């Protein structure tokens, strides 16, 4: 049951508090307490991280997601906002080697992290092997979900190499392998409405060096 205080808490009050408090504690009473401290109330926080190898220092509204920090503040618009709810995967980036939905993560939580976006994976004339494989296998049409698909694909192969099991991994005692079922499962967080899934599957298989 929600408490009376939670019911009364307004959006403004919530937003006026520190996002880190919300993220860590997530408890309305503490939020209100933070607001009541008056002078300590901070709407913005300085954060430093590396994006595609370049150090960045930003002072951000606490509620800014990593996705918005990349798109609106660093103008790295390759990472896309498809749903802003972590349900479509278009915003996938690689943080310290792991793929995350950048829309579900506040920028201030990434102080000191190394972030790789689609712009950092490869450039025209110097494509990442996954980007080249997407061209060869026609792994996309409109291109909107593609940056997320590629970041996800790159990280998926690293997850398999690191022997991180998935929902469909049958034998947890053995090294995870690249199979169609594994790839489909691991890529199921990235929606492609153009329906290029089977070509994306072929592209990932090629980079993994395993026939589809």
């Amino acid at each position, binding site marked *: 049951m929600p408490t009376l205080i939670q019911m009364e808490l307004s959006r403004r009050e919530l937003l006026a508090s520190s996002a880190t408090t919300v993220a860590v504690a997530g408890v309305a009473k503490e939020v209100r307490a933070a607001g009541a401290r008056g002078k300590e109330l901070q709407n913005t926080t300085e954060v430093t991280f590396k994006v595609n190898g370049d150090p960045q220092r930003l002072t951000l509204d606490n509620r800014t997601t990593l996705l918005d920090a990349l798109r609106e503040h660093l103008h790295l618009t390759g990472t896309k906002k498809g749903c802003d709810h972590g349900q479509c995967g278009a915003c996938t980036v690689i943080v310290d080697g792991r793929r995350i939905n950048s829309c579900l993560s506040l920028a201030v939580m990434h102080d000191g992290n190394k972030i790789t976006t689609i712009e950092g994976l490869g450039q025209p004339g110097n494509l990442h092997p996954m980007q080249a494989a997407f061209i060869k296998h026609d792994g996309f049409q409109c*291109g909107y979900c593609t940056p997320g698909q590629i970041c996800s694909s790159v990280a998926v192969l690293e997850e398999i190499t690191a022997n991180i099991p998935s929902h469909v991994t049958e034998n947890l005692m053995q090294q995870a392998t690249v199979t169609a079922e594994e790839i489909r499962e691991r890529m*199921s967080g990235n929606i492609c409405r153009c329906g290029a899934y089977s070509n994306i599957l072929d592209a990932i298989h090629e980079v993994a060096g395993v026939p589809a």
Partner: protein
Amino acid sequence: MGVEGIGASVARKEDKRFLTGKGRYTDDMSVPGMKYAFFVRSPHAHAKIKSIDISAASAMPGVIGVLEGKQLQADGIGNLICGWMIHSKDGSPMNMGAWRPLAHDTVRYVGDGVAIVVADSLGEARDAAEAVVVDYDVLPAVTEAVKALEAGQPQIHPEAANNLIFDWQIGDGGATDKAIAEAAHVTEIKLHNNRLAPNPMEPRATLGIYDSAEDHYTCYTTSQNPHVARLVMSAFYNVAPENKLRVIAPDVGGGFGSKIYIYPEEIVCLWASKKTGVPVKWTSDRTEAFLTDAHGRDHVSTVKMAFDKDNRVTGLKVDTIANLGAYMSLFSSAVPTYLYATLLSGQYAIPAIHANVRTVYTNTVPVDAYRGAGRPEATYLLERTMETAARELGISPAELRRKNFIRSFPHQTPVIMNYDAGDYEASLEAAMATADWNGFAARKAEAARRGMKRGIGMSCYIEACGIAPSAAVGSLGAGVGLWESAEVRVNAVGTIEVMTGSHSHGQGHETTFAQLIADRLGVPIDSVNIVHGDTDKVQMGMGTYGSRSGAVGMSAVVKALDKVEAKAKKIAAHLMEADESDIVIENGELKVAGTDKALPWFQVALAAYTAHNLPAGMEPGLKEGAFYDPSNFTFPAGCYICEVEVDPETGTTEIIQFVAADDFGNIINPMIVEGQVHGGIAQGIGQALLENVHYDPQNGQLITASYMDYAMPRADNLPSFKLSHQNTPCPSNPLGIKGCGEAGAIGSPPALINAITDAIGNNSLTMPATPQKVWSAINAAN
């Protein structure tokens, strides 16, 4: 075919920018001084607006302006329109109610826009939108079309008594009734074609920029047809005259129909930019997209199909009720009429057809064309009925179809269409061979030993693409012509720009259109740029929908190219002192046939622009335009076969194989065509297995407004597909193209449902065939 010409699977020219994050979509655009918009939307499905108080919101931090519908009306901004007039069978015009860009007296669906807030940041605009106080007098709502027609239901528009928009018919009712009365067998079925949300991954967005110095507007928008947007916004919505309005649709992240229409947001953001004096950007969030993007399908139909003693179809009678939502969207009236009922003959020779269609207002978001638009509804209806009839008659579904195929062309159906070419038997045979149809019984028995229910189903579809000719569609009520335009501009150094009115939002036009030029002139495709999506750069166009860009858009390029070649040949003949009729264009050169005399393409282009030595009286330059108005629709067709295995314990359906055998006419780029078919089938499987828009019938709230509630097809839901082509060239356009963009979405749902109902032995199954529904159907059958 050369390595880059027609028929080659050339890797796409647009690939590199999409793959490296360099694509430029509307939400990626920033201009100096740009501010952010957030719309205040109705939380109620139906309500009177008693008052709107913007005072608190206007005083919020960062707020530049809060604007509402009364101001918009005072400034003379017009109502949104439906551009296709349909008359009821009693001769009366359709009952179109007013659609204001911002509602100011009544809201009619959850998400109806009420006010716009413009602020320094999106966060501030959202905050201020929460402070806009709208006092609603909530009214009862109705969301289902059949119910909305009943007596005593909420009345949504004063113009439409009993919520009926029109009551339309096509075909010969008397002859059809006679066929049914005299039939040896009549198959009856009731079908619901489920309601879908198009869901391009790029949400709609728009950036309105008013330039007070020039009294000029620029609109960046996620559109499939920027010229139509400009035309409608100037001619009907009074935003600005065409010469003062530039519409740019840059990279667009998928449309599937939903980005054809001009929505309130484009109009309001342009107007708000003038009112506030700043550029205004709005980007839909995903829930807003579910709430406000035009939905697709939502038909309820009853069908009677009559057979003689030899199992030939003698008549087809259809009654359809189509939900058009709270307002009539731009092409909404055409979808359940001329894009639907005219295809009810399918691939079959049916002597008598009659269809009655009633369209209905409900308190839901407008419904309009979504990938296939009318044709999936017709195909689902016919192919579910054929399959049901085959089961009732005790003959194989393939045999029943074969017996009724149209086999000579041209073929005039009883419902307007004149099919020009096709070979339906060839697709059927190819699909059955690929699917190993004859080996199915053994596979079914093997599955049964494992406790699984295996089923197989087919669907033979036909569609009509490249809607035209303009005079014909005009006589049927279309408000626009359906031609396409192109300009081929040869630069002085021989590089080429092609301006096309078609718009690419995933179709790869920048490659396929360039392949056409490369094929004809023998120049590398890298020397050809395809320019589209900007009303300042491209003269005019009707855009991309209905699988028309190849058949209609490229045909316009062919016409312009014919003129360019003719002029280039004249210049070359003059320079080489040869006869014009002896000049041939090959491998990037203009040659005198039978001699070794030749001029490179660039040299002829340069001669056209230096104009030092041109034939007497010839104008300088090498640039030609053309408009192409097709003489007929095109008729892609094919056969799809789906084989499934259903787990009777859980009701879960696994697709074992999916076979598509298509006739698309001539193909420019097989790789791109394959991608289009994959995508269409993915959306068709989505409709049949997963997707469903659900409104709460009590209060009109949209229950499925996120990807947690609306099941999109994902990588683990779909198999790989087995594709083949049995192409018969289209005789009615110069390239012989039929179109391929929608076929997959049209042909696949009935194949899948026919397979599942075959597996479970219960024909009563509605889309989407969720595990719960399939499990219930299995247990009802037992």
